[in-house]
């Protein structure tokens, strides 16, 4: 298995690389920042790893293994949720997508030589990303730079005639952000199936709440400032040419991004950096060629994500409807695709996501195997243990969740419990302090994460540890390691 393939599969699971264009599309520069972190954090982790002497002080400790299993379970969960979301978006039952992904990962578990499949699987994933992008650029007849310029000068994002939400109507699932549609102009919404809608109308100082029970074909007209809530699974039809509810006010607003709260950026930086240090631990010092290959591969994925987002913003602005949902990026609804054999092109992206997930499942197991006390990596091939993990995460993913948030939680947990000991390893005779530090990191991370759920509305720097608990938990764990080291010297 090549170094670049291992790094890519460890770090960039589909829930991470598909979140990149979704976040760029959703918030412009803020999404670009996430992309930069996804690109640079593993390089930084590899650079830092190259400067450390390899240690095995934690190999006899149980805690790092348990913490790593938790992190990997969260990552698998995020990706299986995405598999279900993509399946539902493509019109399949949700469980079928989860079953295909989880079943594939389980089959690879049963085969010891599965690690040899990782480079070919990533090659398939790479082709699955590159071909639709090339086809899209060819059909749009515009380069990425010019496409960005065109998006960034759009006066507004309007619903195209080719959108499934215009004709024949499509199920609307809330994406990231608020779970209601705020209308900026008069808009007639038609029920494509039976739908119960809740409308909050603001007329000056008067607020009116009303419920509408619509049968197929019945319409309701919303005015500027009205807010629409809908039950999960409602099939709705919107008017062609109208402003997309949930989209940025204009292309300029999208390109310039929101100014103000920059604390989220620093919180994400520390979380993803800590997660990368814990996850992308190479053990041995990588060569220059290995680093060049890994960096080039990461840059290619980053470039794909940014360009994909720009083409989607230009050709499929209906992606913004109700907030950007990651799974929509796997098959943007209203893009113009080639005809003939080219009609299979849109299916390549879901196939790429599946191949990438299978490769990641193998490499993540191998990574945990590296922590095995025996050194033989047996824990990475424990059929009972991994069957239980895959089964439990598959079951959990039947309920909708936000894949990117699960990835951030997984990386935050890794940063809080594993990264400090990876950066500042202790000698074998004091390895138990690694467990103590990890437990302190875990305790603080869990407490702040729970507190964050109860203290919504807190903003600014005060919200930073509640939104990204690793910014406190990881330094606390590092402090415990530092004290243990000092006590030894004393």
């Amino acid at each position: 298995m090549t170094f670049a393939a291992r790094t890519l599969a460890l770090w960039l699971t589909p829930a991470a690389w598909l979140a990149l264009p979704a976040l760029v599309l959703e918030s412009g520069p803020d999404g670009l920042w996430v992309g930069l972190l996804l690109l640079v954090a593993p390089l930084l982790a590899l650079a830092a790893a190259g400067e450390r002497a390899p240690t095995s002080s934690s190999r006899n400790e149980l805690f790092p293994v348990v913490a790593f299993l938790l992190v990997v379970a969260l990552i698998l969960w995020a990706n299986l949720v995405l598999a279900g979301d993509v399946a539902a978006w493509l019109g399949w039952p949700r469980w079928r997508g989860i079953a295909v992904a989880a079943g594939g990962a389980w089959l690879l578990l049963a085969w010891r030589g599965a690690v040899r499949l990782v480079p070919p699987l990533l090659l398939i994933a790479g082709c699955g990303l590159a071909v639709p992008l090339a086809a899209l650029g060819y059909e749009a007849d515009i380069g990425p730079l010019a496409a960005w310029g065109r998006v960034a000068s759009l006066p507004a994002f309007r619903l195209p005639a080719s959108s499934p939400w215009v004709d024949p109507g499509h199920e609307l699932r809330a994406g990231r952000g608020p779970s209601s549609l705020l209308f900026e102009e008069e808009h007639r919404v038609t029920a494509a199936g039976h739908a119960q809608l809740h409308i909050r109308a603001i007329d000056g100082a008067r607020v009116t709440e009303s419920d509408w029970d619509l049968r197929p074909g019945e319409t309701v007209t919303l005015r500027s400032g009205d807010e629409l809530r809908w039950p999960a699974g409602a099939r709705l039809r919107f008017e062609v040419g109208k402003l997309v509810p949930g989209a940025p006010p204009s292309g300029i607003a999208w390109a310039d991004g929101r100014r103000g709260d920059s604390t989220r950026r620093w919180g994400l930086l520390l979380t993803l950096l800590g997660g990368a240090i814990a996850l992308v631990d190479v053990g041995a010092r990588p060569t220059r060629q290995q680093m060049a290959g890994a960096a080039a591969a990461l840059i290619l994925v980053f470039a794909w994500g940014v360009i994909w987002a720009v083409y989607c913003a230009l050709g499929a602005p209906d992606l913004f409807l109700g907030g950007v949902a990651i799974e929509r990026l796997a098959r943007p609804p209203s893009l113009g695709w080639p005809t003939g054999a080219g009609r299979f092109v849109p299916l390549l992206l879901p196939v790429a996501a599946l191949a990438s997930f299978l490769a990641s499942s193998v490499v993540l197991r191998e990574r945990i195997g590296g922590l095995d006390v025996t050194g033989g990596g047996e824990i990475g091939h424990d059929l009972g243990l991994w069957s239980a993990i895959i089964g439990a995460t598959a079951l959990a993913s039947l309920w909708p969740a936000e894949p990117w948030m699960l990835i951030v939680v997984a990386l935050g947990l890794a940063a809080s419990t594993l990264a400090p000991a990876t950066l500042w390893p202790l000698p074998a005779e004091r390895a138990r302090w690694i467990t103590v530090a990890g437990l302190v990191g875990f305790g603080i991370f869990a407490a702040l994460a729970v507190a964050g759920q109860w203290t919504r509305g807190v903003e600014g720097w005060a919200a930073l540890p509640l939104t990204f608990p690793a910014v406190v938990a990881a330094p606390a764990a590092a402090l415990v390691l530092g004290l243990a080291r000092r006590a030894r010297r004393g």
Partner: protein
Amino acid sequence: MSLGHFTAICYDAIVVRLTRPALLLVLLAGFPLLALLPSEAGNIRIAGLSLLWWYGAVAVPALAWVITVLLHR
């Protein structure tokens, strides 16, 4: 004890060890700092792309590759 040996240890321990991670961090930190510039200077368009996007989408990836590979020992 030779001066050459002493110099090599200092160079290795202080400068080279931290250069790559520090440069990558500085490169990253440049993005939010550019976004915070007064008068929204990061939104100035140059050759069709805003300064912030040139930096984030083009300069950082290219420089990150250069730092990662060329400064590799």
